[in-house]
């Protein structure tokens, strides 16, 4: 393995021998042109709109435009920090993500490992197709299904009923919301999420697996000592990325599932921003909240990346 790596670095050095940029440009004109389109895309749709965060510091009134609105400094940040919901929003947003990382993150890895152990290709393909079908169902439909299954005479309650339990009104009790959110998320995303791990698994050297088999490893030992370390870099990178969005919860699923009686656990930063910003036209306030959220995400990403760099020397930059 190490040798192979050395060879590779060696050859890459050869490739980067100095070529004049001008020559290079002339030679690959069309390639640069294609790249330019990408760059323009990022500039126009990602970087230019970032100027819009200005309105977090202004009392933005659309009719007057960004420049015409009055500066208010950190007023909206203060308003949010002193809001009665500040603590709760952060807690709900974080907890949903914590549970999702605890249960939702390992799920596709486990599925990929299980699929990898299958010998029947046909069965494997079938399982794979079935598990990623839900990913392609529109979120609105998924939420409709969830609401239906969890209603008083829905599937889940019928099962509870069958085993002699008493009816539970799931979507009116705050304690069930996170579970519903995370479990349905796993159901929807597990198959699609496993693709990247399956790809990583396919790159594992079969010689290693064979060698471990010869050395007397059983299946679990093989997974533990060969397969898992083999896909560890992928897992770590995916984890870093996931942890970088610890403060993100998509508002669509939340607003489709929640109601006032379960705000206690279901109201998250994005749904709050939606209610204040879009429904009430408080653009500045909701931008301030959104910006605060993005900053925390950004900070988290950097911190986790640094830790990973120190601990495992795997990092995204």
């Amino acid at each position, binding site marked *: *393995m190490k040798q192979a*790596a050395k060879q590779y*670095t060696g050859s890459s050095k050869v490739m980067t021998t100095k070529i004049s940029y001008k020559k290079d440009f002339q030679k690959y004109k069309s390639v640069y042109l294609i790249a330019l389109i990408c760059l323009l895309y*990022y500039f126009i*749709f*990602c*970087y*230019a*709109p*970032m*100027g*819009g*965060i*200005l*309105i977090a510091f202004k009392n933005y*009134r*659309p*009719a*007057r*435009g*960004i420049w015409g609105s009055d500066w208010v400094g950190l007023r909206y940040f203060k*308003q949010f920090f002193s809001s*009665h*919901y500040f603590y709760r929003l952060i807690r709900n947003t974080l907890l949903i993500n914590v549970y999702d990382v605890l249960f939702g993150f390992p799920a596709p890895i486990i599925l990929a490992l299980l699929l990898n152990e299958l010998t029947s290709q046909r069965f494997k393909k079938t399982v794979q197709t079935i598990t990623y079908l839900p990913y392609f169902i529109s979120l609105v439909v998924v939420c409709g299904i969830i609401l239906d299954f969890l*209603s*008083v005479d829905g599937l889940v309650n019928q099962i509870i009923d069958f085993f002699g339990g008493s*009816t539970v*009104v799931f979507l*009116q*009790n*705050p*304690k069930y919301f996170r579970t519903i959110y995370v479990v349905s998320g796993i159901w929807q995303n597990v198959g699609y999420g496993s693709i990247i791990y399956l790809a990583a698994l396919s*790159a594992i050297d079969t010689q290693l697996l064979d060698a471990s088999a010869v050395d007397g490893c059983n299946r679990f030992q093989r997974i533990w000592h060969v397969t898992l370390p083999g896909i560890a*870099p*992928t897992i770590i*990178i995916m984890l870093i*990325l996931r942890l*970088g*969005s610890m403060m993100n919860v998509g508002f669509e699923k939340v607003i489709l599932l929640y*109601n*006032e*009686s379960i*705000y206690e656990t279901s109201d998250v930063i994005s749904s709050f921003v939606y*209610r*204040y910003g*879009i*429904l*009430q*036209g408080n*653009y500045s306030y909701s*931008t301030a909240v*959104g*910006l605060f959220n*993005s900053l925390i*995400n*950004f900070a988290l*990403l950097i911190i986790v990346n640094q830790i990973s760099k120190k601990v495992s020397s*795997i990092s*995204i*930059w």
Partner: protein
Amino acid sequence: MKVRGKLLALLLTTAVVTGGCASKGGSSSEGSSAATQKTSSTAETTAAQAESESSASEGSDQSGQGEVTTFTYYRPGLNRNNITSYSDTLWVQELEKKMNVKIEFMGPASGDDYNQAVNIVLASGDYPDAVYMNWNNYNGGLRAAIDDGIVVDVSANETYKSLMPTWFGDLDENENLRRAVTLDDGTSALFCHIENNLKRGAYAGYGIRKDWLDNLGLQVPTTVDELYNVLSKFKTEDANGNGDNTDEIPMSDDSDHNLISYLAPAWGLRVNTPYLDPDTQKMTYWTQYKDGEAFTDFLTTLHQWYEEGLIDPEFASQDSSAKEAKITNDQVGFTFAWTGNYATWTDALAENFPSIADKIDIYGMVPVVGPAGKAYTANDAHVRYAASNEGTCVTSSSVKDGTIEAILKLFDYMYTDEGSEIINWGEEGVSYTKDADGKNQWTDAVTNDSEYSFSDKVFEYALPTWGGFPKVMSYDAWASIEATTASQQQAHENYWKADTGLLMPPLMMNQSEAEEYNQIMTDVNTAISELYLSVILGTKSVDDIPALLQQVDDMGINRAMEIYQGVYDRYISK
């Protein structure tokens, strides 16, 4: 392996940058739209200039029949089985012909999420010529919309004013109307529907299955205690007579919480809206009324009902269609109902249960009397001559486009007797005829259509119900479709018997008031909605109420009531 990791890392770095950008783009899309707005608005100005020049040159021959003025009107569409666009209706075509205009209707197909849609349009900077909305939902209210240069203050311009003799004549004559629709300084920029008969406002309340009561030998309840007894009987006995005494849901509600809003007045409470304490005539909020005693009592009672299974277990999370499915499945005994619901539910029940079809009787009730001692209703329409905050305004675009004069003339015509007749009834001889007493009657073409029911068909010709247009409502036209069946009329009459002691006139705030008030009340209303639902559901205990009310105090509820009191005082002295 490490190298592979690095390669993957590189790949994923691009992924994260993309992802990061995507999310950033989402949060600041306002910015981008505002940026494009700038260019588009300059483009517009030049277009407007060009147009004003051309209209100036046309000015000479603008004596009369000239060209048709086309203008855009943003509002929810006509969401009916048989017709979906106002442009296709007879009355709009009549008005267009008469006033030499062409209305281009814009906006979502139905009223769902309309605030969201209209707020985005107003933020885009590219305004339609006329916009309908509840201006309380514009950040800062109507006053702010005028100050922001979106809405045209018609009353401030003598030329514009002179185009609307009927409207401004009505304002001078009708004290109630003037108070309702003008801002404190007399500004009139909003054109809403006007009531000619307040009784039309009696369209909301609650109804009970009288046939269930008859099955059990009970009387229509008139007090909260009697209601409780009736609901308990519904629960324990086989009220719907299908042989199963467990399938009845004595009372049901949906996530709009209308039933709760209409029951609360029995305790002297209005849900999530400030009102005058009937004893002291001071502005109060339901958590503050009688120091929270009534609030606690109300929630304790409803929680007890919920625990005893009298209330639909899913009342807080189900939507209205889920509730209606239970109603038309002969399961619900008592619920909130618009007058219009009585006919549709009765029909659906009769269709689903032919064996009891002739017995079905949903009975609209006079509000029950509770601890507050009066049959209070929560429907402000009983006392409102105009909707005030909800209506159409002309925007600065109409000035640029040079369409404003035609729009104002049209709106004024819509308030005249002639114009209102066209809106409410359609065209004489086509959709209605006058009988011997001079009363209007729908023609056969409207009432006896082979394909569509009368209540759908009528919308091809006229708009007898409320639709958010500038017009004078006609009680007769409205009653002809909303109070036709015996049960509808019964409900309408009973709703009208309610006491109006807790109702509020329409109030309009100025911008700073609106901003401060909304900031406090958005937080308060969220907290209170959550509180009252969790207490009823039992996920919070009644003992938690004082602590939570303290929290509401901290949010500044008293300050909000102070603001509202000020607005009310100004309304009274207006």
